[in-house]
């Protein structure tokens, strides 16, 4: 498997600095090795898990956390909403 660092960093919404590249490529290569190791492991698709999880709870309405308390941690708020940069330009065309 080829490591496409550019694609992975874009998907992760992260930036890799030039001085970090070698260490990260090394770490990713080690993950690829582990993935290769697993390809040789025995198949065991039909086994039941040791722990069975319970069914979903009834979908009943319940009180939620107060809106103001939730927004208290937001870096920027306007009119009771989270505020972010616009993804379109203010003239109405797409950015």
């Amino acid at each position, binding site marked *: 498997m080829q490591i496409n660092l550019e694609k992975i960093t874009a998907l992760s919404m992260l930036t890799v600095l030039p001085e970090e590249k070698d260490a990260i490529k090394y770490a990713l290569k080690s993950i690829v090795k582990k993935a290769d190791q*697993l390809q040789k*492991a025995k198949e065991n698709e039909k086994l039941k898990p040791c722990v069975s999880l319970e069914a979903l709870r009834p979908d009943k309405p319940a009180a939620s956390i107060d809106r103001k308390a939730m927004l208290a*941690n937001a870096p920027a708020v306007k009119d009771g909403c989270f505020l972010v940069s616009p993804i379109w330009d203010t003239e109405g065309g797409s950015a």
Partner: protein
Amino acid sequence: MTYVIRFSIPALRRLLLAGQVSSSELTKAYIENIRKTEPQVSAFLTVCEERALQDAEKADRRLAMLQAEGKPVPSLLGIPMAVKDNICTKGIATTCASRMLEHFTPPYDATVIQKLSQNGSPLLGKLNMDEFGIGVSTENSAFFSTKNPLDVTLVPGGSSGGSAAAVAAAQAPFALGSDTGGSIRQPAAFCGVVGINPTYGRVSRYGLAAYASSLDQIGPLTKTVAENALILEAIAGQDAKDVTTAQNKPFSYMTELDQGVKGVRIGLIAELLTGYVQESIRANVVSVGKVLEKAGAKLEFVSLPSVEDALAAYTLLSCAELASNLARFDGVRFGRRASHDTLESLYKNSRNEGLGTHVKQRILAGTMILSSDCNAYAKALSVKKAVQSDFAKLFQDYDALLCPVVPRMPFPLGTKLSEQEIYTMDLCTVPASLAGLPALSMPCAWEQGLPCGMQLIGPAFSEGLLYRIGRAFERESGLVKEDA
């Protein structure tokens, strides 16, 4: 009054019930010890003295009222606690030891905090950890490293290093940690305390900052097995806010604690007693078997063939889940927001500024595993099932399994571990995590003042049996004195 901080939780309860000490006095004694020892140990990210004393005063009033009315007193009323900083505490900073959440104050309590608060346990503060749980030494905290109280030149283990160190330094009678692939058990072994990774679904994860949701569990760290059983009993149980919690009711671990190990069949996992593990640790764990045999247990060597594949599968699954869980940190709703020009630079800059190098590396690895170029995720899930199957087969013939916790003794702060050394640190703890099984870590020997840990693994929801075996070992070995 400071002498009381060395007492066990049952002994403290007796003093509280007899009116020989108040929760306020007890809480002040712990705060005093935190002040005294923190310059050396650095276990706490936040000490909430005011809140702790308010909680303690409330506990004192509640105790007086309950006693006056002749009503039962909750098991932890007035006994203070400290909590890993990835468990949400309403109104008190919860940082996950990350710059990303440096100024985050949760608007709600985790279920375990609600339970312990209702029980009457004052909150002393929040404990240091490896950032978002990623690390084996608590040196990956974005703020500072915690030191091992037994020798402050050594690491306390990780990622719940602050929790293990706080208990070992008598800064709190008990602490909560979280375990994904060994993060309670390994620091417990390094600091000479008892820690349990409960069965997946035994304890609610609501309010625990997620690392790898299919593996994460909250568990207690204490000085002794009996204390650990007491705390797990208080936090276990089904929770409507975490659908992965199990329906079966938690039973009283305390009632079967002293039933001994006569006839209990225990398997020593041969693959975890090989060259990966330091010779002295192997010898100590084998000696545990002999002590338990003397107490009436039946010991045999057994094979868990999927051990090495388990480690690879764990690495892939935990990275993949981490990448998904940490996608929420984008500078929009909470956490750090960096300066930016566009929405995309808001995401990228906030994540780059807020997340540490190790976390970023794991996110990149997880993203790669989940990308269309890589088909390893499904294979890792298949190996997880193989591990579960190997355990299930063993539990047809054995009641519990015994093995080391960590392949090596605590190492000096600042040690540059090789990639292979970091990788194999989780070798003994990961199999139980992948299978969702309970695993108890406790000291089994001391070498030149440092503890060596042993691990007991049981079938799902067999925590009571593990505590029973652990307690029998404490008694037979004489390592733990009866309730001081």
